[in-house]
């Protein structure tokens, strides 16, 4: 990857993380851990891959993103705000009464949100429907679906996995955020969805693994995904829950807890230092 572009993406991803902290701190609730683990992915998709128009969010031929792990909405909102779908000041109103930013994504209320999600396992089915629609009408948009590794415990995910392979939905790319943690603990201890790659392969998907926090590797994975035809692609991204904020990293307690004032200040300090380092 071009080093200038890479640096720019890292800067943006850092700002996206700051938005996550800002939003969940002001909401006094929300899910920072899993939001931080997909910040780089969302940045790459919205800034490199996806054909979207902030002035025309409903543009029919746009690429679509379904955040099947809808509780990580703060990351999606933050990247949409960075991109200019709405003003950044909205982030501070996350989860407040009357806010356009609901606790989980609401496609009818927030510009740039392509599907209403939040109840786990459902987004991937909707993404299949969008991809199928593209096939029916011979359109060439792509559909990206982001799932949690814990989410794979939902049976509906595997109904959808069967469906996507059966209808050869090669315009669908599902990214599994494999941070290894869910609310009750390690995914391998709660009710293990592993081996994730083998499962998707046996369901007829082309599977790629990638480092979720390295833009060179992210680009390699998506370049490879683009070459696949005839079957859906699953990218299993190895990620760190809470990535970017030292005291949140790999801590299951940060799945669904907002930072208090002191933690907020500490997190923002760390992220601004990272930003300074990148920009400096």
């Amino acid at each position, binding site marked *: 990857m071009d080093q200038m572009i890479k640096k720019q993406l890292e800067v943006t991803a850092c700002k996206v993380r700051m938005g996550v902290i800002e939003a969940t701190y002001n909401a006094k609730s929300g899910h920072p851990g899993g939001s931080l683990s997909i910040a780089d992915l969302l940045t790459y998709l919205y800034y490199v891959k996806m054909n979207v128009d902030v002035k025309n969010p409903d543009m029919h031929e746009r690429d679509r993103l379904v955040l099947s792990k809808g509780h990580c909405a703060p990351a999606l909102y933050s990247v949409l705000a960075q991109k200019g779908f709405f003003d950044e000041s909205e982030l501070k109103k996350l989860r407040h009464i009357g806010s356009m930013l609901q606790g989980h994504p609401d*496609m*009818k209320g927030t510009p740039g949100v392509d*599907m209403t999600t939040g109840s786990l396992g*459902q987004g991937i089915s909707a993404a299949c429907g969008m991809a*199928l629609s593209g096939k029916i009408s011979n359109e060439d948009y792509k559909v990206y679906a982001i799932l949690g590794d814990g989410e794979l415990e939902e049976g*509906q995910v595997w*109904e959808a996995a*069967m469906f996507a392979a*059966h209808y050869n939905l090669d315009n669908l790319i599902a990214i599994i955020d494999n941070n290894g943690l869910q609310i009750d603990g390690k995914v391998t201890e709660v009710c293990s969805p592993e081996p994730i790659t083998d499962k998707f392969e046996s369901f007829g998907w082309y599977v790629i693994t990638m480092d979720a926090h390295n833009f060179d590797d992210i680009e390699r994975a998506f370049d490879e995904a683009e070459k696949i035809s005839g079957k859906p692609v699953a990218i299993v991204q190895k990620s760190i829950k809470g990535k970017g904020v030292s005291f949140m990293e790999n801590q299951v307690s940060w799945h669904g807890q907002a930072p208090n004032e002191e933690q907020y200040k500490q997190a923002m300090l760390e992220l601004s230092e990272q930003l300074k380092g990148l920009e400096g």
Partner: protein
Amino acid sequence: MSEIVKKATRESYGEALKELAEKYENLVVLDADLAAATKTGIFKKAYPDRFFNCGIAEANMMGVAAGLASTGKIPFASTFAMFAAGRAFEIVRNSIGYPHLNVKIGATHAGVSVGEDGATHQCNEDIALMRTIPGMTIIVPSDDIEAKAAVEAAVLHDGPVYLRFGRLATPIFNNNNYKFELGKGILLKDGKDVTIVATGLMVCEALEAAKELEKDNINARVINIHTIKPLDKDIICKAAEETGLIVTVEEHSVIGGLGSAVAEVVTEYCPAKVVKIGVNDEFGYSGPATELLKAFGLCKENIIEKVKQSINNIK
């Protein structure tokens, strides 16, 4: 006298989909391995490229329908009522109802008239479940003519629609001048002593019952409520005020269905006695459909008896 022609509304559903396909090019059909039973097979045969079998996976089918609708297609997601409203309830609520997506749910094999398959497949709860979803339109057609008109009305309506069809062949009693108006009840017979409000395959039974009641000098009004949500409040209130007694009839639980919907309106806006005929908080069982309907009191004989009883109780 001409012979009564009978047809199951599921058959009308399959035929209507096929008939409407050319006119509405965005119409697509999904099924969950029941195309032969839901009659979407009729559509599949004519338009194989617009039919998608989802396999025995109703949750995913509803989600796929949501995705299709979000991109401008008009998907009809079809399976038995038990699985459409029951098994997939939460997907219908969250992926279709909450974002108010333009998905049409074609639910067949509703009620005890499923027959021999028994309780696991006899859905008496679907109207109740669907009624609780904000913005959901619920249509229960009473015969072939109404069913076909309802399918087109569903296509023309922007938003989620739950269509409830039956397995059993029932009389076609509406005539060719029939006009379907979403959300409007139909006054089939005027009357001043009592109003029988019916839906689905009970409408024909209600009409028959009303005819026989005339012999005993009971002048019953009959209203067909094909759209349970949004409910036609005006026609219900007028009936409550003018006849003072309403008997509801539905092939559904007395909890949460047509009877409840009517009672909600009557108690709030036009208090009058409401008597409910339906499945009384119990599961069904196996047997021939027509015998089951009789056993559950979903027949003209029981309507006549309940009407007489209710009139006597009021006096």
